[in-house]
């Protein structure tokens, strides 16, 4: 569904379930920026900005992960920032990126064998060799393709290939939007006003994506007022 359609639905109706919230947030992800090579990524704490009950959100996300529909990644810049991607989307994009590459068969094997059976965020060498029966050279291929990244000696994080650009633009954009709130008079701004503002070239993602991020991560305080939601910078 189109972005406008999704946003309309979200502002008019009470968001009922986590999956539809995820789908809405996914529409905010700028696919064109990455030439459609990356799957749509959403951060887990962006859900907290829409649903009040954080414990319920965590439970629902885990349910979706258990039944294999959703994948969670440790993005690396914050121990509490987890990226969420729909499994089908991830598989499509990864395989598309592996077209014509020598590592393709190993990556396929990994996607078929490991993802459905294991919801871990990282894998140790033991597990890869003994449980999933990969060879050392296959593990090297997986790291080369970007599906695994190094965590420490003998253990790897599950990762999204070519997501370095995403992380870089995300951190840049987050810093810029936070700066916009901080530099406002009294360090606070109405959310509606902020979304109207022109963004600098530092902000490559739609402003709403960043607003959900900073509210959900509690980097700004979200205060309901008679003129709408107010975002106040939190000094930490």
């Amino acid at each position, binding site marked *: 569904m189109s972005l406008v359609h999704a946003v309309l639905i979200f502002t008019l109706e009470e968001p009922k379930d986590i999956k539809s919230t995820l789908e809405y947030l996914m529409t905010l992800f700028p696919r064109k920026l990455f030439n459609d090579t990356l799957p749509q990524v959403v951060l887990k704490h962006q859900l907290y900005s829409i649903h009040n009950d*954080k*414990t319920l959100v965590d439970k629902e996300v885990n349910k979706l992960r258990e039944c294999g529909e959703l994948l969670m990644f440790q993005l690396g810049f914050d*121990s509490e920032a987890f990226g969420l991607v729909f499994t089908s989307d991830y598989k499509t994009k990864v395989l598309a990126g592996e077209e014509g590459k020598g590592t393709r068969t190993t990556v396929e094997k990994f996607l078929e064998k490991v993802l459905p059976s294991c919801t871990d*965020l990282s*894998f140790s060498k033991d597990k890869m060799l003994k449980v999933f029966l990969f060879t050392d050279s296959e593990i090297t291929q997986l790291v080369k393709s970007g599906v695994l990244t190094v965590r420490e000696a003998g253990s790897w994080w599950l990762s999204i290939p070519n997501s370095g650009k995403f992380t870089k633009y995300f951190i840049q954009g987050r810093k810029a939007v936070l700066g916009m709130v901080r530099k406002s008079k009294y360090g606070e701004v109405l959310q509606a006003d902020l979304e109207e503002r022109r963004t600098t070239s530092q902000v490559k993602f739609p402003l709403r994506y960043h607003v959900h991020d900073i509210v959900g991560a509690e980097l700004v305080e979200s205060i309901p007022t008679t003129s709408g939601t107010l975002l106040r910078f939190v000094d930490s």
Partner: protein
Amino acid sequence: MSAADTRAARVLSLTLDPDRDVDRIHGNGINTIDIEAVEGRYMLSGGADGVIVIYDLENYSGKLQYTCKAVCTVGRSSRHVHKFSVETVQWYPFDTGMFVSSSFDKTMKVWDTETLKPAEVFQFEGNVYSHHLSPIARKHSLVAVGTNNPKIQLCDLKSGSRIHVLQGHRAEVLSVRWSPRYEHILATASADSKVNVWDVRRASGSLFTLDQHNGEKSKASAEAVNTAHNGRVNGLCFTSDGLYLLTTGTDDRMRLWNSASGENTLVNYGKVCNESRKKLQFAVSRGCSPDFVFVPCGSSVAVYALHTGELVTMLRGHYNNVDCCEFHQDHQELYSGGKDSNILAWVPVLRTADVEDESNNDNKGAAGLSAVNPAFQDAWSSDED
């Protein structure tokens, strides 16, 4: 509504008590307060100036507005006063004849309430961050002491001995707490990000250590394995039935654990601001359905629903950082003390008298007058405006 629901409703309507305040004796911040368990009448407080004060919380003045008077004080002029700030005070759980205080002057003193002289003084090598006596113990009289030494000392009140030591932590121990359910179970929190649960009858190490990822080693980075928090753990509180343990850490998180299995219940309270370099004293309600947690958060007290993690409200009233809070179980009242040297009382909003009650005109008149604090009575507006 059941009794538990009524108590929960009272907690939800907590506001600053307009009719009561607590005598202001401390010249400096208040670090710790404790209300005795026997009658719920006397409150102890320990301050950054080393002073210890005992207050009488009961209202015998006959008037609605009253001040909780200080009954006695161990002030700066006393020969036995602590030299540096008092970090923890606790009444002897079984009667108010004795209380124990510990301080940054590296001592823990056991006081006789009558004479206000220490019956026993335990000397330590480092700052004492926290101590705790078991509220239910009949078979032992051990005081657990957390200092900046990673070893936890157990001091025996009866014999004065302190040979029992618990080893396991790698950095200073910021908080210690006995279980209110089993008199031999002790939980300890340390700056090494770990929380250990001990059975003091065992000679070997701790029973288990709390793991925030519940054994899912894949989720965390390698260093965070088997830690309770991603930072110093500085607050511990058991729920009153002893079935759950709450911990707070400088990673701005609060976690609820099943105290028997050590499992993280994964209740998400969001960001619980925590900048304390010492122990944090927070409280849990009892007998309410649902139960609430009261956590000092900057200059307010944050109230969370215990099992859902929802932030219910922020109690604002202090002028500076709040350092400690204590819940009065019988009246569902909250007392909080902070750097502004004030102890504030938070009470459930009192219901105004029913208007239909015609029978007791005298009572209604009296209640009507005293229900409004004279300071707030409007004696200057004219009706013609």
